């Protein structure tokens, strides 16, 4: 009997010890990010990533100034061309300076270049087909190697190489050619003017001396260690380590060519849950948080956490499908105008968004400072009586007394209203459904995961095949550039173009105006065309704004010098300090 008891105990001890030993020993090895072997080591301090493990803890000296971010999504790659995530690209300003960045007013300022090319300084040719950039003399990679025009040309070559299968070739596929006449000059040639260049080009460059050998050896950069461990960079901080699912750590770059950063180490701690992020900010376990839920803003303020709001061009709104397959109501301008008057946006902003936002009239309202919004726009006012009148006059009458209007052909004013599964969107759907019911419009609600909602035509995705009449999401132009190219007629999804992203319809006038503005290099001339677009789209109710969607940052009061930009949020991170 006794021996059997021992068998039970022995079995448990063995299982537990085996499993525990796996848990306690193995974390150290697979989780550390090895320093890339191809990285040169002329400046060891800059290139060699410390690799702390569970066995050799990284005990930080108490005097070190450390700032911790609560990052709700883990980046997928630190290589700018293998990511589409905001949580990845926002890190660039620490370790991979852009050619020019944007300040807290979203105004560009030069980083790697001596000045931003313009028509006035001759950097942009009068015909808009050539843009010349002059690089600063003092810029070096974190391993001490100079940054030259060859790095820019190499970056272009890597983006365009099919074998690299980068996330996006845009806007480099607009370039006809690129050349480097000398070490400090880069010349871009276009076949036609491309007005959006300032917002889209040179969002990071690749270190040629590190990555060219990898490309030559493997035929692709896809598996380059640098993508996940960019130990050679050109920002105020160096990448130090990335522990999957846990944190990414950056340390001061001793070879930084700009003003020396004041914070010693910066951690991006991955905290995927919104409520946990808020708890970490209140408890002081995190100093900075992004994408703060609006419902938590009052609590955070009450606890002394500073809330900073920065526009990044996004606005939440309704997109109408006026393609042939849509309900006749969605294709009828009078119905769209009636909907614009029947929705109480003020109530939505007040009740669902705690009065912290307001309704924009156009997609360009967050860019109003640049003069992109027509001054002639008359905002839509909540007026259900006027909405009813308009529907009656347009022939949409409730003929069978069921509370839903029909047209003369007996087609009911029942619209399908789809969005993604984000909670605030589903709440908004319910509110708008009730509001439109008051004027005799029935809404059938659909909400899906974003990957399904925005699927392709061949997948039968709702937006692509047009099975929804009204769509809702938050979007922005190529901020701070005003271009938004998914309104073009050749972008309508169909069997030949299954990935087309004009889910709305073809309006030849809009198509012409959008194409025209992209070729205008004179900013004032271009702004006039954007104004025309904004007024036309507003009056046609192709897009109907619900609320502006700026970035909400939460900052611990112990930090000083903190500013954010909507384009390059951490542009002044080198100036941050702790009290």
């Amino acid at each position, binding site marked *: 009997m006794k021996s059997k008891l021992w068998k039970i105990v022995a079995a448990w001890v063995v299982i537990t010890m085996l499993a525990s030993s796996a848990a306690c020993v193995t974390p150290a090895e697979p*989780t550390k990010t090895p320093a890339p072997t191809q990285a040169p080591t002329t400046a060891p301090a800059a290139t060699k990533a410390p690799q702390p493990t569970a066995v050799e803890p990284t005990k930080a000296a108490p005097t070190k100034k450390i700032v911790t971010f609560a990052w709700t999504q883990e980046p997928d790659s630190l290589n700018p061309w293998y990511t589409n995530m905001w949580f990845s690209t926002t890190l660039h300003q620490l370790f991979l300076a852009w050619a020019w960045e944007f300040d807290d007013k979203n105004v560009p300022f030069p980083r790697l270049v001596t000045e931003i090319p313009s028509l006035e300084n001759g950097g942009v040719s009068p015909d808009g087909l050539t843009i010349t950039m002059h690089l600063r003399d003092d810029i070096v990679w974190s391993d001490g190697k100079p940054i030259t025009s060859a790095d820019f040309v190499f970056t272009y070559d890597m983006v365009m190489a099919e074998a690299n299968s980068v996330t996006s070739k845009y806007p480099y596929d607009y370039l006809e050619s690129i050349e480097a006449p000398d070490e400090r000059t880069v010349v871009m040639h276009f076949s036609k003017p491309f007005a959006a260049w300032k917002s889209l080009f040179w969002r990071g460059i690749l270190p040629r001396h590190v990555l060219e050998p990898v490309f030559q050896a493997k035929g692709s950069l896809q598996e380059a260690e640098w993508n996940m461990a960019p130990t050679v960079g050109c920002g105020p901080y160096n990448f130090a380590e990335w522990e999957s699912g846990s*944190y990414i750590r950056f340390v001061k770059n001793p070879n930084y060519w700009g003003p020396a950063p004041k914070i010693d180490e910066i951690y991006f701690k991955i*905290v995927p849950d919104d409520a946990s992020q808020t708890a970490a900010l209140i408890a002081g376990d995190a100093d900075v948080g992004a994408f703060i839920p609006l419902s938590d803003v009052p609590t955070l303020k009450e606890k002394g956490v500073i809330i900073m709001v920065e526009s990044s061009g996004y606005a939440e709104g309704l997109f109408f499908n006026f393609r042939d397959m849509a309900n006749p109501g969605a294709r009828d301008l009078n119905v769209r105008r009636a909907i614009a008057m029947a929705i109480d946006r003020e109530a939505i902003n007040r009740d669902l968004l705690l009065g912290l936002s307001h309704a924009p009239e156009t997609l360009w309202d967050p860019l109003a400072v640049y003069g992109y919004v027509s001054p002639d726009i008359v905002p839509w006012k909540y007026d259900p009586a006027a909405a009813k009148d308009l529907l009656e006059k347009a022939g949409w009458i409730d003929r069978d007394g069921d509370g839903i209007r029909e047209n003369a052909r007996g087609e009911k004013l029942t619209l399908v209203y789809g969005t993604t599964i984000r909670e605030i969107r589903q709440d908004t759907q319910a509110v708008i459904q009730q509001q439109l019911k008051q004027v005799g419009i029935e809404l059938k609600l659909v909400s899906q995961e974003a990957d399904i909602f925005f699927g392709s035509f061949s997948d039968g995705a709702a937006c692509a095949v047009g099975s929804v009449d009204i769509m809702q999401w938050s979007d922005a132009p190529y901020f701070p550039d005003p271009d938004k190219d998914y309104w073009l007629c050749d972008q309508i999804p169909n069997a030949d173009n299954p990935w087309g992203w004009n889910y709305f319809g073809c309006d030849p006038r809009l198509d012409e105006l959008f194409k025209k503005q992209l070729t205008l290099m004179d900013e004032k001339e271009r702004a006039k065309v954007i104004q025309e677009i904004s007024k036309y789209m507003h009056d046609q109710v192709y897009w109907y704004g619900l609320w502006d969607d700026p970035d909400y940052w939460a900052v611990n009061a112990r930090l000083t010098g903190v500013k954010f930009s909507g384009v390059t949020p951490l542009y002044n991170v080198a100036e941050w300090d702790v009290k």
Partner: protein
Amino acid sequence: MTRYIVRRLLQAIPLLFIISVVLFILMRSSGDPVATLGGRRNPRPEDRQRLTRLLGLDQPLYVQYIYWLIGNDWTMIDVDGDGVVETPGQQKGVLRGEFGTSLVVRGKPAMEVILERIPYTLLLMIVSEVVIIFFSLVIGVFSALRQYSLLDHLITGLSFLGYSMPIFFVALVSMYLFAVEFKSWGLPYLPTGGVFEPQEGNTPLQVALHLVLPVMSIAVVSIAGYSRFVRATMLEVLGEDYIRTARAKGLRKRTIIFLHALKNASLPLVTIVGLDIPMLLGGAVVTERIFAWPGTGRLFLDHVSRGDTPVVMGILMLIAVAVIIFQLITDITYAWLDPRIRYT
């Protein structure tokens, strides 16, 4: 016994095949991996078309499954998009031990992505399991020995309370209480999440402190359930003839309870725990998310939402294999512990 083990293992092959087919079809039908690429702004149509082709997502579903299973290095694929296959494939396939490369962490082998997280998940889950078993036994035995006493009623009430509380609620309330409020009240407090605090470094003490709240959240609900189970089986065993005989022989109470009663009462627990062990690999999705614990549960959630078939299939197949192996081990252990059971 050897024949039994071999037969069970052979039966597992078609079972795993069917599981993999079903999971693959479900996974690939749950959204377009290049629809958003995790961004705020959707990728351009030209890029989506190119990536769909380069990642092999334009192939028919059965071709994608075959490539996942046996690789594509025996055939040619179209890389430049001219409709002509010209480049030899690179994938080796699951049957040759390669789960493909992640679609999210581009170019990184799926198994590498998973293995980075498994130690953390095992650490969290094993500690939780040990805590659950220990407290379930203690509370269950205690409650059974004092049946219908005030304390038994109290434990029963608390058990139902614990069992009916969702994990996310326990997790968030305990975080706000022990991490946020305790700190503001000037009491000793626990961290809100993660594995260690940057200022303190990655020390065993730090990891232990960060384990307390997630382990507690997982354990509360399970202890409530398991302790009821132990109480019921203990009561059943305590009424058996051999216990009465043992008492009549004058054995010490402690010997009767722990050697005779508990041993037999805990036998059914072996089955439950045996089924729990493979699930340890899957981690605790809700708890890992709330406490920012870098385990496989969170990895699964993050990668399912991005349609990362190689990583998700890797996690699911690991769990499927573990379930089959541990069920077999449980059956064998059961036979070993209870001589009345024989497998032929």
